[in-house]
């Protein structure tokens, strides 16, 4: 069991591209407040940002509304 876990670990280490690993390592050395400062951004999203409040009875209704109303380039459409 321990040996298989070790093999899994080695596999997961090898599977992470080096540039991504470097980014993860760098982020791990930043305090949470700084990480959040870098992470949360603000840009206008057409339609989505044009109402103060929206609510949907089901997630399916929300997904359908996104697909029908949002520009496709926002990426909210299902694949």
């Amino acid at each position, binding site marked *: 069991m321990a040996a298989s876990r070790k093999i899994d*670990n080695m596999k*997961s*280490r090898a*599977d*992470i*591209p080096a540039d*991504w*690993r470097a*980014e*993860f390592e*760098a*982020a*791990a050395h930043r305090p*949470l*407040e700084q*990480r*959040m*400062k*870098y*992470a*949360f*951004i*603000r*840009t206008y*999203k057409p339609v*989505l*940002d044009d*109402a*103060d*409040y*929206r*609510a*949907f*009875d*089901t*997630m399916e*209704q*929300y*997904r359908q509304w*996104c697909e029908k109303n949002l520009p*496709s380039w*926002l*990426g*909210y*459409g*299902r*694949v």
Partner: protein
Amino acid sequence: MAAFEYRQAQEVRDAFSRRGVRYLFIGKSGAILLGFPDTTQDADLYIEKNARNARALITALRDLGFTLSEEQNRDLERGKDFAQLKNGPFDLYLIFAPDGIERFEDAWRRRVDVEGFPVCHLDDIIASKAAANRQKDREGLPRLKAFRDYWLEKRQ
């Protein structure tokens, strides 16, 4: 409207704790709290769906400065699956039934505490993004899965 900040996350944490709201950070905002280096615009909260929690949520949102009409209060109490709030000091997405997660209780058991912020486990965040299957989620999933592997390595 400015971007969501650490101080506002603290305000959410404190107000929700004071009012007894059961919730978890989810989505990319949750992953960021866990250390994922990426960008997002939204703070996504997974709210346990029941009447008591909805009432506590409404009170906590008022404490935070959100302006909710009676109709909006009724919406939340009645039990919507999703609400988008842009009528307060910052934007919040409230998710009551995320794709890919069966029950709040299961996600709560697997949660990770980050400086007092309750956050969904990365496996749940990935499961919900995979189940939603949106273009923007699909594009980001390989890197998020790689981060999960890195994060699990570090936790061992």
